[in-house]
């Protein structure tokens, strides 16, 4: 049988921490990354120009990109805390359980990042007066997405490591 990151306790701890901090930092930075990406791709700005635009609008009334990042990060932070306990307290002697949990958590992190990034990019790409509502609804949609992605990841893992 192949050795995976979940087999060695040290590597498993590393995987847990990587997923934990990836979830936190991606939750905070996805709106900013999307803003820069749309400025560069759609508005033909240089990367430096897009970064400057981002910094100008972080606290500007009507833009509040800092607050948008914090709102976006809420479900990511919640999931990060969950995964820290869920993977961190997994029984060391049960490889199958650790694999299934890791797969569930990994797929959830990927799902959250993908859905959040897609929402932010499409909202900025087709911006209109109501587009900002997406930022308010997104955290709730991500909360709904979490158990679905997790269940899907565990099911995949169960099939793969049967």
């Amino acid at each position, binding site marked *: 049988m192949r050795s995976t990151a979940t087999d060695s306790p040290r590597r498993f701890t590393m995987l847990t921490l990587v997923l*934990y901090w990836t979830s936190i930092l991606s939750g905070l930075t996805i709106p900013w990354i999307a803003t820069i990406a749309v400025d560069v791709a759609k508005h033909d700005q240089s990367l430096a120009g897009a970064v400057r635009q981002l910094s*100008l609008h972080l*606290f*500007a*009334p009507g833009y509040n990109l800092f607050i948008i990042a914090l709102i976006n990060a809420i479900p990511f932070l919640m999931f990060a805390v969950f995964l*820290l306990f869920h*993977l961190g307290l997994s029984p060391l002697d049960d490889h199958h359980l650790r694999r299934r949990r890791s797969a569930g958590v990994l797929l959830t992190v990927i799902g959250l990042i993908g859905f959040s990034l897609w929402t932010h990019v499409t909202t900025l790409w087709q911006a209109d007066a109501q587009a900002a509502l997406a930022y308010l609804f997104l955290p709730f949609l991500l909360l709904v997405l979490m158990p679905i992605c997790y269940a899907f990841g565990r099911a995949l893992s169960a099939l793969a490591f049967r």
Partner: protein
Amino acid sequence: MTFRQISFNLGALGLLLALLGLVYWQHTGARAVPGLIDALQTGDLQTQMLAAQGLRHIGQPAQPAVPALIELAIGQGRSSIQIEAAGALPPIDLSAARKVMVNWLPKLQDPDPQVRRDAAAALGALGPVAKPAVHSLLGIATDPNTIVRDRVVRALAAIALPPELVTRGLTQALQDPEWTVRYAAISPFSFGGVLTPESLAAVRPLIHDPIEMVARLAQSALASADHPIPVSVHIFSLDQGSDRTLPLLQLAKLGPRAAEAVPKLASLLSAERPLERYLAASTLESVGPGALQAVPALQRTLADPDPIVREAAAEALHSIEARRP
């Protein structure tokens, strides 16, 4: 993982959140003012415009930014930053906004139409605080330059006070040969505006205006006239929103019909923000004798720390007394 490792990572997350909170705290409210003043002095138009918007949002605590804002509002820079800086002043300092008004007023008579246009736009940006400029704006309402007339109409709509004079100016502009001016004149009537019998007569033919946008707004204005927003809704808005400017102006436009709101308006004479106190007094002025019960509150407002609020209170008292039967 050990509990120690978990606790360490949770603690690091807590630290990160505290750091983010600190960054947010530093960049909002009065703490942001020094940075925004620096931004006003960068010379970069976008940075200056965003800084002016930020200062306007902060309001009174942005008092240290007033000299820099006045400089931009009356300076030789681009019209857009003059407008943005002028628009930032009323929520911060009413007297400073009046200084800007006094500076721009003579320029309405300038031989250069671009200067007249910029003057009208800057006065409009000051909003209701530029009430004393309405007579001068009406004086150039038939300016030969289309853009000047357009800016004058937009300025009148933004100033909104005194309602009778402004409505007269807007009604006159409804018959302008240039459609952009008619469009600017009909817009305030279609979005919660109050139609007098004269303005109603001027709006009716516009539903057949060759420009569809104008015709649609005329239909909307007539529909608004058929179903006016009740005074109670405006009173409710005063209690709900953080920005009371719009409901106060709506009540002012109603004139004597806003008498139901007098107790609420009297209580707003002691509001924290000078702009709200000024608007409450100006609205009582437009209500006239129906605002009799607000007289004691208005008399107390004659000792308001802000001279512009004191002036508005005196005008309101005069209006209540002078128009009494």
